[in-house]
């Protein structure tokens, strides 16, 4: 089922969208972790990206049109948990290697077989560099998506 985002950052999209999602830091002794929740499974990807940007403390405002790059990705799906990890690790790779900070999701289609997304990205700037890659990778540790009180919830631990 497709989730239509918009050409805005995940932070701004959350404020004006029917798709309800949140994130917050979660305690973990060794690493960084976030707790995410969303009204629909696809919303978890928005929450996860918002959480990644949030714990890295990167500027996640919507870039100007001329600075915006759209980056399409297609990932084979092994279930929502694995897809979340793969999605986040693609985002980490983009920041570290391609000098692109994904700040929004324009389109996202999540199904049994695959995850397709078009990410809205802005260029990495010098101010980002001390923070980028503060996360080495998203891990599978303790990652279980559960439905609770009408919301899909999960915790994601990042290796730092």
């Amino acid at each position, binding site marked *: 089922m497709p989730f239509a985002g918009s050409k805005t950052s995940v932070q701004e999209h959350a404020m004006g969208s029917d798709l309800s999602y949140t994130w917050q*830091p*979660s*305690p*973990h*002794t*060794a*690493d*960084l*972790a976030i707790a995410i929740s969303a009204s629909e499974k696809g919303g978890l990807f928005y929450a996860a990206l918002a959480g990644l940007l949030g*714990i890295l*403390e990167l500027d996640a405002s919507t870039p100007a049109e001329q600075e915006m790059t759209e980056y399409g990705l297609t990932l084979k799906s*092994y279930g929502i*948990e*694995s897809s979340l990890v*793969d999605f986040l*690790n693609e985002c980490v*790779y983009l*920041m*570290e*290697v391609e000098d692109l900070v994904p700040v929004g999701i324009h389109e996202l289609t999540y199904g049994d077989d695959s995850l397709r997304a078009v990410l809205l990205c802005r260029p990495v700037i010098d101010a980002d*560099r*001390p*923070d*980028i*890659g*503060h*996360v*080495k*990778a998203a*891990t*599978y*540790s*303790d*990652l279980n998506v559960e439905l609770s009180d009408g919301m899909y919830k999960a915790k994601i*631990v990042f*290796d*730092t």
Partner: protein
Amino acid sequence: MSKTQLPKHLTRIDDTLYRLERDFQKNMRVPGYVYASDSLIELATRDNALSQVANVATLPGIVHASLAMPDIHWGYGFVIGGVAAFDPKRKGIVSPGGVGYDINCGVRLLRSNLDAQETSDKIEKLVNQIFRDIPVGVGQEGDIVFEGKKMERLLVKGAEAIVDEGMSWPDDIEFIEEGGALDGADSSLLTDKAVKRGRRQCGTLGGGNHFIELQRVEQVFDQEAANAFGLAEGMLTVMIHTGSRGLGHQTCDDSLRVMRDAVTKYGIDLPDRQLACAPLDSREGRQYLAAMACAANFAWANRSILVHLVRNAFERILGESAERLGLEVVYDVAHNIAKWETHSVDGKDTRVPVHRKGATRAFPAGHPDVPDKYQNIGQPVLIPGDMGSASWVLRARPKAMEATFGSACHGAGRAMGRNEAKRTLDYNKVIKYMESRGIIVRAGSKKGLVEEATEAYKDVDEVVDVTHRSGISTKVARMVPLAVIKG
């Protein structure tokens, strides 16, 4: 924690050792053993650390026990400080989660002919020069490029490739674990992404808890061993802590995807997805070890280039050659790795892949893998502390081979999460504290520095004390930081 307050099925064996009985958690094939004092075990009960020790005990083919060193803390998959070995004849597995994303994160220690006190007026210039010369921060890249055939050679030859590049001393190789290269590396198994990430990262420090420290040997506890290691009270030493950078992280991530399928294919039941694994005699298992070896070799090469840059900085500031300054490698240890080693299992010498996730190899005197110069002493075990306290050199003892698959702790271990550190600690206070201890700090990231504050870590002296009293490895020298470079 009083004995009566211990969690159920956790038994205190003595003042350095606890046992997780097999009833601690379901499906444990072996018990868990945690080397810890009473206060360290109390810390371990506050998060999921003990559950992670128990989870590893459920893995197929595990032999003897799921082990944890005194710096035990909650990780992902394996506990940090975890050690486990698996017998291929008992359907044993290999797990990337038992190594970690930073494959061959490790430590290299340099000695010198310099007295720290006599050199004190040069310390700030030295650290400034090193900070200028070495790219710091995760994701940061350097000027040295490895690609194509050059990268392939590096991934197979490790530290020796850097000798061939003229950036390392041939004599260093003997004092690097595994001679600076694991056999069996197959560079064709790395993805383009992994290679791309590593292209300009060999010779860079990274962030997080990676560091370069200028230290003073404050106290020698074992004169015979200190003499053999070339250490003396008052000496200026340099410690480097880093790993395989983005290449290693990507290799782990790529491998976990493969293992994800393997778990289903081979019918392996897991309590935690991060323990995804494959049988040792499977294609997936063999390929993981070959890819992991590439990343491990990259890390040794990385530390060799950093040593080269440190030596250059010393030469520039002090106006003497690094050879005359005696900047020699004492030793280099890996603390995130899985390696085939021979250990006694049920009374028989058996080749097993020992997984060390935040744990250091500790081979005693007489072991063939210990350098000739240290044969009578045993391998140096390098234990970095947090940036405000101390680091240690220990010597490995025979007890390590009997009890822990030749393993010891790797550091202080975290006591406070990174989020909590950022929330509760103040950057300016952290800097003031370091200044009050006379420690010069250069950091790539304010946020990173706060996360690495002394309060966020356990007491390294206590961790080392438990290791010493347990007999696994014993104290040789304690070093205190004079200057720290953090990513």
